[in-house]
């Protein structure tokens, strides 16, 4: 999609300003019912679009993403723009600086339409935990778009943006992509700088694209990837243009299917679609093999211990003093002037939503004296063992190139269906958390439809690749996409 639009801009068939205005028109017409956006950045967008149009007029060469309108998840800082992470505690926060990904995209001339809705601080799998409003799945408004990057995925599915950025800590890019029939990529840990991303769990978080096609994912990744002095965990990428690696050739590629992922309990219709997709991969020249990742049943527990621990630490900065909501003595009676401690307690009590508080308390418990060894340290040990499982499957003699599974055990669920039981909601992440725990890149793309209550709903397939092997991972997904 991006390449076609780029051609139209360069040929003069349309202008970036026109294109941007079309998207704003559609957003104003459709987004009230969908709720993909929390904030629109119309002035910023039109300024940027105008700049690109002038460059084109002057015959300057522009980048593929230049002048193309996209959406940014609301936990990524855009300077001078409200950035809330869908939390009341940041209701009035104006980011004073750009996240590295935003800076890089702006430098290439990308146009930002606005900031998208999400589960508060990226904690959730349905966007129902946004402090503002839930986002609806454009394919069936009774169902969730997934989460936490549900706004970004819905914006793509409803054509309210050409490209979007999400963040993925345990599946928050891939699961909403699967639920909305779009493409979502979580890069290798370290591939993309996290500077300016409101941290959820720092050892798991990665920013990545949610888009319509695999090629678009490659194009966006190339613009945001690479080492950054502001994020010591970011890795060198060598300035690759990932879109140049898409040749659709899968001959001789080995794809592993973990026995543990497609067991008896998998829904029969989901299984059928999944098996058809394996045949497709074979048709493209790939060899399918069964592999073992024995520690799979433990991944979710490891994830929830580490994620809540890191979350509790990262969210300690929201204390009602430096920025964000502050419940202080102006809200109290004169004879009940608050102490510093009371400002902390009240600001956090009223600023954070239920799910955030639940997770902060859980993480605080897991890190507290006496329990640290039993939970946090134990989880970091099992995480190493899980990584060793993946190393065996990928790196041992005659190992596989990719691991393939459904992205989720089921298609998009209905609003309210899982909100009563936190553990049931957490199970939606079962196939996706391992990629974050071991750091490998993973992409979700549509593999077929299943029927639920008479409606056709998309299913996502997830390919995981080797560490820092995004070019081959994207090419494998591209090969699959070309067969459709």
């Amino acid at each position: 999609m991006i390449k076609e639009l780029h051609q139209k801009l360069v040929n003069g068939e349309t202008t970036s300003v026109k294109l941007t205005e079309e998207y704003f028109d559609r957003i104003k017409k459709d987004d009230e019912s969908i709720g993909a956006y929390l904030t629109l950045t119309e002035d910023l967008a039109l300024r940027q679009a105008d700049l690109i149009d002038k460059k084109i007029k002057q015959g300057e060469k522009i980048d593929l993403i230049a002048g193309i309108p996209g959406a940014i998840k609301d936990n990524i800082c855009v300077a001078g723009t409200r950035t809330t992470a869908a939390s009341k505690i940041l209701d009035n926060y104006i980011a004073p600086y750009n996240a590295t990904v935003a800076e890089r995209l702006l430098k290439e001339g990308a146009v930002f339409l606005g900031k998208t809705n999400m589960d508060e601080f990226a904690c959730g799998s349905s966007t129902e935990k946004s402090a503002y409003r839930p986002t609806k799945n454009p394919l069936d408004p009774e169902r969730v778009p997934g989460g936490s990057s549900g706004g970004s995925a819905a914006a793509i599915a409803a054509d309210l943006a050409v490209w979007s950025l999400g963040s993925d800590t345990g599946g928050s890019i891939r699961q909403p992509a699967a639920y909305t029939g779009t493409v979502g990529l979580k890069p290798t840990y370290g591939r993309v700088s996290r500077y300016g991303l409101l941290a959820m769990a720092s050892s798991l978080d990665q920013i990545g694209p949610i888009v319509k096609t695999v090629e678009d994912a490659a194009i966006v990744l190339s613009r945001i990837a690479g080492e950054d002095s502001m994020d010591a965990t970011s890795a060198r990428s060598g300035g690759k243009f990932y879109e140049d690696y898409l040749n659709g050739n899968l001959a001789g590629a080995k794809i592993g299917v973990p026995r543990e992922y497609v067991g008896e309990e998998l829904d029969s219709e989901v299984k059928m679609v999944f098996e058809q997709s394996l045949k497709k991969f074979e048709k493209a020249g790939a060899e399918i093999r069964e592999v073992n990742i024995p520690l799979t049943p433990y991944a979710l527990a490891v994830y929830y211990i580490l994620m809540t621990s890191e979350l509790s630490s990262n969210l300690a900065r929201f204390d009602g003093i430096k920025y964000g909501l502050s419940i202080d003595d102006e809200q109290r009676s004169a004879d009940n002037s608050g102490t510093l401690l009371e400002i902390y307690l009240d600001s956090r009590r009223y600023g954070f939503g239920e799910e955030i508080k639940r997770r902060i308390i859980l993480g605080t418990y897991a890190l507290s004296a006496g329990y640290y060894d039993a939970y946090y340290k134990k989880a970091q040990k099992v995480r190493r063992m899980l990584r060793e499982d993946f190393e065996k499957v990928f790196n041992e003699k005659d190992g596989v190139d990719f691991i393939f599974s459904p992205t989720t055990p089921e298609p998009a669920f209905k609003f309210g269906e899982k909100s009563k039981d936190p553990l049931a909601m957490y199970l939606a992440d079962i196939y996706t958390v391992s990629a974050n725990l071991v750091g490998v890149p993973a992409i979700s793309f549509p593999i077929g439809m299943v029927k639920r209550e008479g409606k056709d709903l998309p299913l996502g397939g997830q390919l995981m690749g080797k560490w820092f092997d995004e070019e081959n991972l994207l090419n494998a997904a591209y090969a699959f996409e070309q067969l459709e």
Partner: protein
Amino acid sequence: MLLDKNETKNIAALARIGVNEEEIEKYRKELSSILDYFKKLDELDTDKTEPIGHITGMKNIYREDQARNFGDLGKKDILCNAPKVKDGYIKVKSVL
């Protein structure tokens, strides 16, 4: 395993989250069921395994420890988010 009420209260205090009696009861029950789920890891023998550090094996990355000057404009942008400001500083309640 059901968490002790005082323990739940203590954890909420450590997390700096204000709670009332009703909420303590709610967190107690929810946390207990999730902690039970975490017990699954006890099935694994990890005595000989070291906890993992950086997941992609990256080693220390150094840079100069230098302050970045955001200038007066940057200072304004930062302080506009602070709940209380006095003479260009963030105002905090007395600690002692």
